């Protein structure tokens, strides 16, 4: 299960709505509590994919990742995973998401339909890279 603080959830929703019709993206900062992932805040990233493809693609570059790591270190939190939006599309991880995923990380996807928040789901890839498994999302 992944717990999103209300502030983290609000930030993801707002980012998705603001970026529409493009995909938004960012980093999930938090801590592990046993097997539970607890996300306190997010670190927004400007989608680095080519602009013409941003309606269905996002990219967080290695430099973005290194910057996020530095910020996380200062805040004494860990990178738990990433979020991105699917504009006018369900919050289901795609084949493209799977092909580009790392194990262990949570991939939170927010669906934005016609400019407005629709729903949110989170996915973790199987270690053999065969598929994503859904993990429950709690907002509190």
């Amino acid at each position, binding site marked *: 299960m992944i717990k999103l603080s209300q502030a983290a959830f609000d930030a993801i929703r707002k980012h998705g709505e603001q970026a529409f019709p493009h*995909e938004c*993206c960012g980093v999930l900062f938090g801590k592990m509590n046993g097997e539970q992932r607890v996300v306190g805040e997010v670190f927004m990233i400007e989608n680095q*994919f080519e602009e013409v*493809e941003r309606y*269905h*693609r*996002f*990219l*967080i*570059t*290695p430099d*973005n*990742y*290194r910057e996020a790591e530095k910020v996380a270190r200062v805040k004494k939190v*860990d*990178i738990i995973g*990433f979020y*991105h939006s*699917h*504009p006018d*599309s369900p919050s289901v*991880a*795609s*084949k*493209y*998401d799977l092909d*580009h*995923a*790392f*194990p*262990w*990380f949570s*991939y939170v996807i927010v669906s934005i339909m016609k400019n407005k928040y629709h729903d949110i789901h989170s996915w973790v890839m199987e*270690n*053999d*890279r065969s598929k994503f498994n859904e993990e429950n999302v709690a907002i509190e």
Partner: protein
Amino acid sequence: MSVQILIPTPLRQFTNNLESVAVEASSVGEAMRSLCVKYAPLQKHLYSDDGKLRNFVNVYVNDEDIRYLQKESTPISEKDILSIIPSIAGGDV
């Protein structure tokens, strides 16, 4: 010679939770291959089926991305630290 490779959090489950691994190598390519020999489950996350480094797996020698050096042929020496840095991509169909 022995060089250190820093392992990012999502891959530490395959290195007995080690944050860094020492390998014997004189180039980046050798170091990465040695790492995968030592910890075989890493192979499919670092390399694609055609044996190339996956394009979202980035290797840095100290602060330099090997794409701007000599890629996997980049020579390394004992004081160098290698880091595996993810880039994160995805999106809808």
